[in-house]
C-alpha cells in the first residue's frame, strides 16, 4: 500500500489540454473519488496514474517514487475497468490469477489468494465459469477479484458500475465499500455519478475542464461548496440559484430576489455578507431541502413566502415542488403530508441559515 501524489500534472492531446496542471495528495489507505462531467479529465487522470497514458508535464508519485516513465506493469497497481475487461477465453480463476501467474508466483499461493478473494466477493461457485456465463454484476465482482488477488499498492476504478442497472449499482457500491474496509488499499475511483462519489469516498475530488474545482470530504463539499460548479454538481436535485442583490432595508441586511421579494438575513449571515458590494451581481444558492413548507419549518433564519408550484413530484418520503421565481425554476422539498397541488398557492419557507451567496461573474461562493 502507498500514497499517491500528483504534482502539476498536465495532459495535452495536440492542441487540446485535457488535464491542466492538477495537484493532489492521496494518503495511504484513503478512498478518493474523482467526479465530474464527461470530458472533465477524470478518466485521463486515472489512466495517467495507471501508466496507460503518458504525462505531458508534471510528476506522478506512488509510494514516494516518481513513476512518470514506469510502465503500468511495474507500478504495482490494479485497475477495474468500466467494461470489466475480463479475458473471454479464460475461466474466472484464470482471469483472477493471470497477473500472479505472469509473475511466477507458486501455484499453492495463487490458489490460496484466488480462493480467498473469491470467498470475499462471494463468487466461489463461479470459479470455473467463463465470463460469458456470468451476469454483469458477477463479471464486476470477478474484475474486482482480479484486482484484489494482486494485493497492489493502489486500486484504480474507472467507472466500474456504469454498465450495471440501478439496483445492482447500489449493491455493488456497498460491496466495494466493504472490500475497501477490509483491505484498506489506497483507492482512486472515477465516476460521473455524484451519488457514488458521496457514498463511497473518504474525500471527493470534483473536476471540471481539466482542473480540480474542490477537494474535500463529501459532507464538506455538500455543505460548503467553493464554486457554483461544485454547488450545482453535488446534490440531487441540484442546488437552486436565484439572481439577487444585497440591500440595506431599515438598517437590516436583506437579500433581494425580485422587486416584491426580499429576505432579511440572519445575524450570522449578515456579518459575513456585510462587506459585499451592494452593486455586485449575486446568486442566492438554496438546496431543495432548504426551501420547505412553512407549516413545519419556522424559527430564526426561516423566511416565508407564497409560491404557486407548476409541477409536483411525490417521491413517497418527500415531495418535490417546482415553482417559478425571478425568471428561473426553483425546486423545494416539502413534507408529503402537505397538500401540495400544481396551480394551487403554497406557503413555503426558506432556511437562510443554510443559504449560499455566490458571485455571479466569478462563480465563487462568498
Amino acid at each position, binding site marked *: 500500500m502507498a500514497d499517491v501524489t500528483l504534482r502539476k500534472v498536465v495532459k495535452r492531446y495536440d492542441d487540446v489540454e485535457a488535464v491542466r496542471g492538477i495537484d493532489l495528495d492521496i494518503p495511504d489507505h484513503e478512498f478518493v473519488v474523482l467526479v465530474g462531467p464527461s470530458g472533465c479529465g477524470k478518466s485521463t487522470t486515472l489512466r495517467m496514474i495507471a501508466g496507460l497514458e503518458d504525462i505531458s508535464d508534471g510528476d506522478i508519485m506512488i509510494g514516494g517514487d516518481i513513476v512518470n516513465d514506469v510502465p*503500468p506493469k511495474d507500478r504495482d*497497481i490494479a*485497475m477495474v475497468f468500466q*467494461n470489466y*475487461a475480463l*479475458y473471454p*477465453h479464460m475461466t474466472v480463476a484464470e482471469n483472477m490469477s*493471470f497477473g500472479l501467474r505472469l*509473475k511466477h508466483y507458486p501455484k499453492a499461493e495463487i490458489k490460496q489468494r484466488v480462493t480467498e478473494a473469491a470467498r470475499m466477493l462471494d463468487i466461489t461457485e463461479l470459479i470455473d465459469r467463463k465470463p460469458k456465463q456470468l451476469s454483469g454484476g458477477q463479471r464486476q465482482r470477478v474484475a474486482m477479484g*482480479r484486482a484484489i488477488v494482486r494485493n497492489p499498492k493502489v486500486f484504480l476504478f474507472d467507472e466500474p458500475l456504469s454498465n450495471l442497472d440501478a439496483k445492482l449499482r447500489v449493491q455493488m457500491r456497498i460491496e466495494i465499500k466493504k472490500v475497501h474496509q477490509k483491505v484498506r488499499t489506497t483507492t482512486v475511483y472515477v465516476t460521473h455519478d455524484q451519488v457514488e462519489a458521496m457514498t463511497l469516498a473518504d474525500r471527493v475530488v470534483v473536476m471540471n475542464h481539466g482542473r480540480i474545482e474542490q477537494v474535500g470530504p463529501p459532507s464538506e463539499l455538500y455543505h460548503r461548496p467553493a464554486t457554483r460548479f461544485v454547488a450545482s454538481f453535488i446534490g440531487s436535485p441540484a442546488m437552486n440559484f436565484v439572481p439577487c442583490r444585497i440591500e440595506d432595508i431599515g438598517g437590516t441586511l436583506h437579500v433581494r430576489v425580485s422587486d416584491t421579494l426580499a429576505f432579511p438575513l440572519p445575524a450570522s449571515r449578515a456579518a459575513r455578507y456585510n462587506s459585499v458590494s451592494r452593486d455586485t451581481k449575486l446568486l442566492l444558492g438554496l438546496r431543495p431541502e432548504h426551501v420547505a413548507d412553512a407549516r413545519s419549518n419556522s424559527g430564526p433564519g426561516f423566511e416565508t413566502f407564497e409560491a404557486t408550484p407548476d409541477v409536483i413530484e411525490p417521491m413517497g418520503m418527500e415531495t418535490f415542488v417546482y415553482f417559478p421565481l425571478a425568471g428561473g425554476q426553483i425546486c423545494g422539498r416539502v413534507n408529503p403530508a402537505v397538500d401540495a397541488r400544481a396551480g394551487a398557492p403554497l406557503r413555503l419557507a426558506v432556511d437562510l441559515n443554510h443559504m449560499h451567496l455566490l458571485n455571479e461573474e466569478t462563480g465563487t461562493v462568498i
Partner: protein
Amino acid sequence: MVDVAIQPNRATRTGTRRRTSLRNALKRKSTAAFLMTLPLIILVAVLVIYPAFYSLHLAMLNKSMQRYVGLSNFTFLFTRETFWLVVKQSCIFAITAVIFKALIGFIVAHFVHNIPAKGQRKWRGMLLVPWVIPPAMSTLGWLWLFDPSYSAFNYTLSFFGIGPIPWTGDANWARFSVILVNVWYGMPFFMIMYLASLKSVPDQLYEAAAIDGANWWQRIWYVTLPMMRNIIAITTLFSLIVTFANFDIVRILTAGGPIDKTHIFATWAFKLGIESSDIPLGASVSLFMVPILAVAAIFILRDVNKRGNES
C-alpha cells in the same frame, strides 16, 4: 344420398387445408430463406456437385474412356513413384506456404494495426496489391525476375558476390521459388483477415494485461492469439484448400519441373489428364485432394464452434 352429399364437402375441406398449409409453409422464415437461396443451391449443384460426381465417374474409366475399370486408376497411381513425390510436394508446398503466409500476414497486420488511422488506409491498399493482381500475370513478372540469364535477382546478388542462383532450374530452389511467389500472392489475404480480427480485440484487454504485468510478447500470446483463434483457424483452412489446389503459379513458373520436382496435385493432374490425354488418370489424381483436405478441415474446425461461444 348421404355419401354424395358428404363427398364434395370433404374434397373442399381437404383443398382448403392444403392451401392453408401451403400458405403457412410460405409464411415460415425457413421456407422463405430456402426459396431465396435456391438459385445459389442450383448453381452450386450444377457447377460443383455435378462436376464432382462426373470426375468420380471419369476416374473409374480406362484411358480411352470406353470401359469401366473400377478403382484400378487409383491402385495404378499408388504404384507410381511420381505420385508419392507429388503427394509429398503438395503437402510441403501447401503447409510451408500457409505457415509463412500466416506468419508474415500476422506480423504485417500488427504493423499496419499500429500505424495511425490517417496513414493506415494507404498502407492497407498498397499491401493488398499482390492479391488483386491476377496471379497468372504477376507470376509472369516473377518468372522474369527468376530468369537464369537476365534475372534481376541474380544481377542484384552478383554485387554481393552471390550466385548465380538457379531459381527455377534446381529442384530445391524451384520449390523455394514457387513457395515464395505463393506466399507473396497469398499473404495480403491473411493480413487483411488478421487486421480485421485485431481491430475487434478490445483495447481494454491489452490495458488490463499491461496492468497485470504482461510484456509485449505475453500480450500477444495470452490476449491477441486466443482472441484471434477462430479467424486464424478459418483463414488457415481456407488458404490450405486454395493453396493445395493451386495451379497457375506452379504451371507458369516451373510447369512442374525440373523433372517433376515441383509438381503438385493440380499441375500433375493437368499434365496427365490434358497434356498426356489420360483424363481418367488426371481425374483420379485430382480426387486425392478431397480426403486430405477433409481430414485437415475436421481438425481445424473441430473447436471453432466451441470457441465461438466464449467470445
